[in-house]
């Protein structure tokens, strides 16, 4: 079956450390992958997009890698802050004509002060 897996358990880290979240998928060949942040009671907010021919993308304290051979993306937040605490969702494009996204289950990140 088609699956997108993210860290199933919450990730707890200390302020200032680097948080690393994983996204693994099977049976897809996505043209690109996106990462979203979701706070309780709110809709997801777009963070980063990485294309299949890109290995790494950075935006401020965020870094995303995309390994199409391993079928894996890693999402890093450096110098983490308590305000980074949220659920992070990876999403794959499986139909480039429509931008239809398939989401993972999300990883809850808690940054302790």
């Amino acid at each position, binding site marked *: 079956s088609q699956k*997108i897996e993210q860290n199933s358990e919450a990730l707890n880290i200390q302020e200032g450390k680097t948080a690393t979240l994983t996204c693994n998928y099977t049976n897809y060949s996505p043209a690109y992958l996106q990462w979203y942040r979701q706070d309780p009671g709110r809709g997801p907010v777009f963070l980063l997009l990485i294309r299949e021919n890109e290995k790494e993308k950075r935006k401020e304290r965020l870094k995303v890698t995309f390994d199409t051979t391993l079928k894996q993306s890693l999402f890093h937040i450096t110098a983490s802050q308590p305000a980074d605490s949220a659920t992070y969702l990876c999403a794959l494009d499986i139909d480039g004509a429509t931008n239809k996204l398939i*989401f993972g289950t999300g990883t809850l990140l808690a940054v302790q002060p």
Partner: protein
Amino acid sequence: GAGVSQSPRYKVAKRGQDVALRCDPISGHVSLFWYQQALGQGPEFLTYFQNEAQLDKSGLPSDRFFAERPEGSVSTLKIQRTQQEDSAVYLCASSLVQGVYNEQFFGPGTRLTVL
């Protein structure tokens, strides 16, 4: 500028009632998506519009679910004869164009509880 808005934010329905959920996308956005999000899960695709045309409804769980976007802007998701398993957050998202690498802008969602 205004983002995607959804109404109502919360809806409680008795089993068997019909409900209608509204989405106002960002002005000028061509694509509109509906997702269903169960507690502790990621959003699951329901249906997609390009302007007024519904191009993909493969994610609608049953024929009790119906979506429309008659003038290519506001969209309504209707659920007939609601069941308890319909309880979830229903998210609407819009994006500027289709077929290119576009982020989706999400509304806050409508939390539906079916008693």
